């Protein structure tokens, strides 16, 4: 027989009390898991949408003037300063580099095809398509990336040149296959451009390593966007780094407010569960005053009594934490989208199971310390006379 056996036997004997304590922990943990998981999923969802809506930070040459990439004025490299590819590795050295989810460099070159002035937009297709997730591309299947000898035509260009996907277009005396037609986006920069592999365009334009601008999607939930912008400015001298703060801030604020609400509710639930544990264990100790007196009389030390009481609370709370995790995660998976009022993707997070168990255990130990200590310091002679 060990002290744990004594604790277990007592729990078996007092089933109703044990059930109440487990239930209080289950409700607390399940609510926490549900709220926090749903909030996290909402954050991820907003981040994902933010990513789809376009860049959060624009890096341009520091010309002293604003620059739009739909204009033909970018043609003369002698008049407008250029960026180069060496900036990209530099961007990945900033302190908050993990927030830079997508880095999409671009080279803008104008040309004439069949007598029409056309904007050639050199891009890294993989990054560009990741950044422009809302694009509808006719001719490409989902997640298909065009190769170096393929191009994507903006809808206006395709119409004016009379081209459709799988046809061939000649650009600067080189043939390219039309991989896809970009459906109208409402943006003239996109609809009137031909998207071509960045390295290929650099070669065609005889401007190796040159880029005109960089778009980057910064998912800045763990850091202030101002800091990321400042870090980029410090790392990229001679550039103009502009954050599209308004969109980010409003979305971030909404999620952060909900997150704060979830945290406050979670803290209140923890306190409520802790209080139930304290009261339940206190009442249990009072009921067992004589038993504790017997144990003390036959030589149990204070720490043995503490151990028995804390083991009881720990076992029940761990069970509550385990059940609470499954209930909370189950509810989040089933009803998280209802709370968020938008379809969100919630996955079973095994690390939360560990946190639930450890958190419940810690909470039970803290909540039971007072009643356990009261039990441990009982005078055995007085306790034996307790009726």
């Amino acid at each position: 027989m060990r002290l744990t056996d004594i604790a277990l036997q007592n729990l078996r004997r007092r089933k109703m009390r044990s059930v109440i304590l487990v239930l209080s922990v289950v409700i607390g943990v399940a609510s926490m898991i549900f709220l926090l998981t749903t909030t996290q999923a909402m954050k991820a969802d907003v981040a994902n949408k933010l990513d789809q809506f376009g860049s959060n930070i624009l890096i341009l040459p520091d010309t002293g003037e604003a620059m739009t990439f739909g204009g033909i004025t970018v043609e003369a490299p002698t008049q407008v300063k250029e960026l180069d590819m060496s900036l990209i590795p530099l961007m990945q050295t900033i302190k908050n580099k993990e927030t830079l989810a997508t880095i999409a460099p671009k080279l803008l070159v104008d040309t004439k095809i069949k007598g029409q002035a056309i904007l050639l937009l050199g891009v890294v297709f993989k990054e560009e398509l990741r950044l422009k997730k809302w694009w509808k591309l006719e001719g490409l299947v989902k997640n298909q990336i065009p190769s170096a000898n393929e191009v994507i035509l903006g809808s206006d260009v395709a119409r004016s040149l009379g081209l459709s996907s799988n046809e061939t277009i000649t650009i600067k005396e080189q043939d390219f296959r039309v991989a896809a037609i970009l459906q109208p986006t409402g943006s003239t920069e996109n609809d009137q451009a031909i998207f071509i592999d960045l390295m290929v365009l650099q070669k065609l334009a005889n401007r190796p390593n040159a880029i005109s601008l960089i778009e980057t999607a910064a998912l800045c939930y763990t850091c202030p966007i101002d800091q990321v912008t400042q870090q980029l400015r410090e790392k990229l001298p001679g550039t103009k780094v502009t954050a599209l703060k308004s969109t980010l801030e409003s979305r971030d604020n909404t999620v952060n407010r909900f997150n704060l609400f979830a945290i406050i509710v979670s803290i209140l639930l923890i306190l409520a569960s802790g209080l139930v544990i304290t009261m339940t264990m206190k009442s249990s100790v009072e009921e067992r005053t004589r038993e504790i007196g017997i144990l003390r009389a036959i030589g149990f030390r204070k720490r043995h009594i503490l151990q028995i009481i804390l083991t009881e609370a720990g076992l029940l709370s761990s069970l509550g934490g385990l059940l609470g995790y499954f209930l909370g995660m189950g509810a989040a998976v089933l009803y998280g989208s209802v709370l968020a009022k938008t379809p969100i993707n919630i996955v079973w997070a095994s690390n939360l199971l560990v946190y639930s168990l450890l958190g419940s255990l810690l909470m039970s130990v803290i909540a039971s310390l007072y009643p356990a200590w009261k039990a441990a310091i009982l005078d055995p002679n007085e306790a034996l006379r307790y009726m």
Partner: protein
Amino acid sequence: MSLIKVCEVTKTYKSGDGTVIALNNVNLEIAEGEFLALMGPSGSGKSTLLSILGGLNPPSTGKLIIDDIDVYSLDPELLADFRHEYVGFVFQQYQLIPYLTALENVMLPLAITSRSGRQQREMAQTVLVKVGLGTKYQRLPSQLSGGEQNRVAIARAIVNEPAIIFADEPTGSLDSKTASELLELFQALNQSGLTIIMVTHNKENLAWVSRALYIRDGVLVPIPEEA
């Protein structure tokens, strides 16, 4: 040679505005291997003396020396260790843990030792056989008679092989036949070397003991004729 020395022990309690003297300057020596009865009317102080002797209740003044250890000078945790090592209690109303079986109740003092579960079980079963409960060890206290519960309490008291057994009115709620069987068991344990100190109010029990003391108003006095 004295195993237990009680030196000028006084115990007072506060009661309302006044003070009650439960024991008044008690001096006593008990030799190893004695079977001693403490007698006296209700409220005379015999249970208080027993709890002081058992290391459960510190005296207001005076000393208790057991096996050359000044018991109440020990740190509270060492005092618990002392009780575990030296003392076995048979309480009034048995004081068994109701949700543990007879065997588990007997194993309780062993739960805080380094003995394995198997060793604990074997030791507990051996003492249960010794007290005549070899077949009922899986029963809960509520499934045992008063005499059987008393035997479980005795088994629990001796399982850790203490030097002294303190029994507080162990025959108080038993019929005369069961009481005799119990005293016979105590006598056998005493003959095997255990020192036993028993509080009793029953004069007939004196036939089983080696010495008897009488307490009246907290003072040891000669046994009166009418007792």
